[in-house]
Each structure stands twice: as structure tokens, then as C-alpha cells.
């Protein structure tokens, strides 16, 4: 695998692009933040994953217009990301836990609406819509300094949504939010996506990216190591075959058949009814397995992949990057 040298872009979305980075490099003095990034972000939910220092925050700040690229170009809706015209189209939810603490949540969101140029009545209406979207309508009159971390996170999201941007950029949005709140926020992102908008979510909580993001971007050392759907990226990881666990009352017979298949790299029998396989080209394998099981009337009681999660893919990519 040569991921670090040539980023894997499984499904480059160029049509309907909301944001684009072209040959973008950002230096902080002698330190490189991001290195020669080419990226297109279109409608839908995109997850941004990577360890600390991978360049996620730099990428997000470039898109939010808070940093200027040292080289290259960052555009949002066709305009330079740093321009005020582009900011009309960006809703940015920063990871910083700072507010106008003396305000209530409702007043803060209305204030942000007014700062986006809305009239008083429009700001009031839009603030109520945004507060409803984040589930804070009935709790928004309390002072911000008295809010829990989860409530503050929701208010930050509300201010990012208040001007109904084309793209929502959220940095670690699920931090400090309880499980119910997380589910609600994920629903919120999906609702935003369903309206044809783009969502870029940076997170360390990899398993939640499995459920949330349609497309993921793995970053490391300032570069994009891989991007695409998890399945697409997983399939590209040739040297890391997919691990599959299978239970069947005819485990031995089935294993004997499967080991002959070219996509099956290895089989390990666990007991009389269970074995695990290492599989290349998972899509082709599962298609063939399904046909085979039906044709031969084989009883399969369980079939699961054990390392197709974002976390496993992330580990593979990072270990490949470390070797490169």
C-alpha cells in the first residue's frame, strides 16, 4: 500500500462541490500543518478522522476561512474561503468552549443571526428554528454559564445553523454529549444532509463515524491518507484482508469449499461450528458466498465482519502510513 504518497480517493465528488481545496499547503513557520491537499467536499456527511497533529483542525480552519493557505486555493461555493461572501455559506461549530457567558442561549443565537445581517424579526425566527433543531427551545433562556457541556455544544451548533448555511463544519461535536444527545445530534446532521447540505464532522469517536458518515477522510502527518466510503477504503487495503467470522452447522464442509476461492486468503477453524476467514475483495466475496450458500442449501447461522469498522480501517491506514 502506498497510501501516504498517493492519497486514496475512492469516490471523488466533483459534481455539486460545496468546498474545494486545490494543492493546499499550510506552514506554521517550519512546521507543516497540511501538505499539498486536494479535496472536494460535496453534499452529504463527510467524516474527518486522524490522530492529534494529523492536520484535521488546520483543514477545518482553512475551510472556515480562519487560516490562509500558504500555497494553493480553498474555495467554498466558488469563493475564497476567507472572503465574507463565502462565510455566508459556512456554518462553523468550533471546538473551543467559549461564549458570551453573560447571555442566555437564545440571546446568543439571535446575536449571531444579527451578526449575519438578519433583521430583528428574521433573526428571532431563524434562532427559534435553529434552537428547535438542536432541541434547546425550552432550555434556551438560561444563562450560558449555567449550561452543561452538552447544552453548550448544542448552542454552538445552533449558532452555526442559524443562517442556514450550505455547509456545516463541526469540530468534535459529540464531545461531552450524553448517548441520547449524541443520537439526536446525529439525527440533526442527517436531517441537514437530507436538505442537500454538506456536513464535515471531525471526530475521534471512530465507531460513531461508522454510523454517521457516508464518506470519510483519513488524515495523517498533514496529508489525506485515504478518502471515500468505509467500504471502498476497506476494499483498497489489499495487504489487510477483511476478517469474517462465520457460524454454520456444516462449518468443516463449508471451510473446505471456501479455501479454494481465490478471494479467500486463509481460514481458521475455531470449533465444530465456527471458523474465521481472511478475505480479499469483500464485495465480490460476499456476493459469491451468498449465491453459494443458497445454491448448496448450507445453513449459516452467523456471519459478521470483525474489522470493517472505521476504527479498524483507521488502524490499518495509520500503520501503513507509519511504515511508509
Amino acid at each position, binding site marked *: 500500500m502506498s497510501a501516504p504518497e498517493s492519497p486514496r480517493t475512492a469516490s471523488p465528488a466533483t459534481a455539486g462541490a460545496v468546498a474545494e481545496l486545490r494543492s493546499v499547503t499550510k506552514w506554521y513557520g517550519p512546521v507543516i500543518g497540511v501538505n499539498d491537499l486536494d479535496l472536494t467536499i460535496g453534499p452529504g456527511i463527510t467524516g474527518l478522522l486522524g490522530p492529534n497533529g494529523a492536520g484535521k483542525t488546520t483543514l477545518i*480552519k482553512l475551510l*472556515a476561512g480562519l*487560516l490562509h493557505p500558504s500555497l494553493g486555493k480553498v474555495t467554498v461555493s466558488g469563493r475564497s474561503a476567507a472572503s465574507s461572501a463565502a462565510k*455566508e455559506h459556512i456554518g462553523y461549530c468550533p471546538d473551543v468552549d467559549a461564549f458570551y457567558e*453573560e447571555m442566555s442561549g437564545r440571546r446568543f443565537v439571535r446575536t449571531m443571526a*444579527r451578526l*449575519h*445581517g438578519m433583521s430583528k424579526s428574521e433573526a428571532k425566527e431563524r434562532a427559534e428554528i435553529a434552537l428547535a433543531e438542536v432541541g434547546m427551545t425550552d432550555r434556551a433562556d438560561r444563562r450560558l454559564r449555567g449550561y452543561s457541556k452538552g447544552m453548550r455544544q448544542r448552542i454552538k451548533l445552533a449558532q452555526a445553523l442559524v443562517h*442556514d448555511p450550505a455547509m456545516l463544519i463541526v469540530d468534535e461535536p459529540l464531545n461531552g454529549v450524553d448517548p441520547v444527545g449524541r443520537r439526536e445530534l446525529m439525527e440533526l446532521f442527517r436531517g441537514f444532509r437530507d436538505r442537500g447540505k454538506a456536513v464535515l464532522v471531525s471526530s475521534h469517536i471512530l465507531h460513531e463515524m461508522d454510523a454517521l458518515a457516508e464518506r470519510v477522510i483519513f488524515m495523517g502527518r498533514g496529508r489525506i491518507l485515504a478518502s471515500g466510503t468505509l467500504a471502498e477504503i476497506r476494499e483498497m487495503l489489499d495487504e489487510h484482508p477483511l476478517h469474517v467470522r462465520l457460524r454454520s452447522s456444516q462449518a468443516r464442509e463449508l471451510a473446505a469449499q471456501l479455501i479454494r476461492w481465490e478471494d479467500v486468503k486463509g481460514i481458521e477453524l475455531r470449533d465444530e461450528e465456527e471458523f474465521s476467514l481472511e478475505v480479499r475483495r469483500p464485495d465480490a466475496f460476499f456476493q459469491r458466498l451468498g449465491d453459494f450458500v443458497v445454491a448448496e442449501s448450507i445453513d449459516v447461522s452467523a456471519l459478521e465482519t470483525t474489522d470493517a469498522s472505521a476504527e479498524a480501517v483507521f488502524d490499518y491506514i495509520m500503520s501503513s502510513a507509519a511504515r511508509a
Partner: protein
Amino acid sequence: MSSEKTASERPSALQPSALFSACVHLLRLTLSRQFWSRQTVVGLALSLLCVMITFAWTLHRDPSSKRLIEMMLVPAFLAFLMPVFAICYGASAVGGDREDRTLIYLLITSIPRPLIYLTKFIAAWLLATGWSVGVLWVLCTVAGQPGNEAFDVFLLPTVFGCTAYVSLFLLVGAAFRHGTIISLAYWFFLEVLFGNMPGIVKRISVAFHTRCMVYESGSALELGPAGRVAREMFLPVSGETARTVILISSAILLAAGMLIFSRREYRDLS
């Protein structure tokens, strides 16, 4: 969804009326946040102290206008309170938002950065000038009849001095992380020490030019530095020159601040 226009349906940049409305809201927000702040408490506490000293001074001295100006208003108000108000509101207008990291919310709005800076300048200038003129009026009122004359002498220099100080300290607050501390250091070393040195080196200070304006507008009172040596070494410029220098330097500082604020990456915000 609301029937209101979405961002993608709205024009790509704010229309002038919407931009004006956003700036007015930012002005009100800044005025409100700065007025109800620690800076106001500090400024008021120091003002109260100066008012008490002035009151005590008027009880024990023959309070002529000339003596009031030379012994109380120039050192206590012109050289101390006015720059303090300018530091309180000027350095914290952008610097305060930066320190508490709420500046990020301004930088992600659709208001162009130069206009954010200009709006911050107007707010800080209104507060610093308003408080300075207000405190000057109180000091002059406390001093009685001589204070009435002194108020007229100081009004214009106060407005000009506040303009120069606010534009300077706002720039410092926008350019440096610990703007208030740097502003205080500047005020002490450049304005207090250099501003009282013999020769022309003092001409780089705002205090020198505001004093020249005071001396000219109070020429009927034969105002000037106390003592023969000080008078000989003060080397004043005309009031018109002082006004011109203050206005031009304020404009340059404001323009430089807008440029710096527009280009600066505030990496410490998150």
C-alpha cells in the same frame, strides 16, 4: 423549514443594508459588553480616587483655573485617567474578545474583517471619550468656578487625545496576545517617561501633543509647564500642528490596525 431565504438563496455577500445592520448590532454588542466589564469598574475606581483628590485639593488651595489645570488636571486627568480609559476600552475591544476566545464568533460572521475592526474602534472611542469627558466634567464641577474655565480648555484636547490613544491601543490589542499589558508598558515608558524628557524626543508621544493643545486653548490663562526650566525645555508645537499630528497618526494607526486585523490568523482561538 422556514419560508425565509436560505443562505444559498440569499445574495453571496451581504447587501449594504444588511451589512450596516450587522455592524450596528456589533457596535451595540461591543458597547454593552465593554460597558458592563471589569474595565469600567477599574476606570470608575480610579476616577473616584482622582475626584476625591481634586476635592481635597480645592479645600486646601486657592483654586484658580491655572493652578487647577497645572496641578490637578494635567497630571491626574490628561496624563493618567484619559490614557487609562483608552487602554481599558481600546486594548480590550479586540484583545478582550481574543483572550476569552469569543473573537472566533466575529471572525466567522459575514462582516468583512476591516469593518469589524472599524466598528470596534467606534465602540471603544465612544466609551473612552464618553467616560473621559464625563469624568473631566465631574472633576471640573467638583473644583467649582475655576473648573468651568478648565472644562472648556480641556474638552477638545480630550476628544483628540482619546482618538489617538484608542486607535493606538486597539491596534496593540489586535496585534499582540497580551495587548493590555503591552499598552500599559507603552503608556508608562513612552508616554510618561519619554513624554516628560527634555528635547524633541517627547514628540513621539500622544501626551505631548494633547498638552500642546491644552496650552494653546488655555493661552489666555498663560498655561505652560510648571517651572522655568521645564518651560524652556518643553519646546511646544502649535495647537494646529498638534491637532494635525494627532489626526494623521490616528488615521494611520486605524488603517494599519484594519490591515493587520484583516490578515492576521488568530491561531490561539481554539
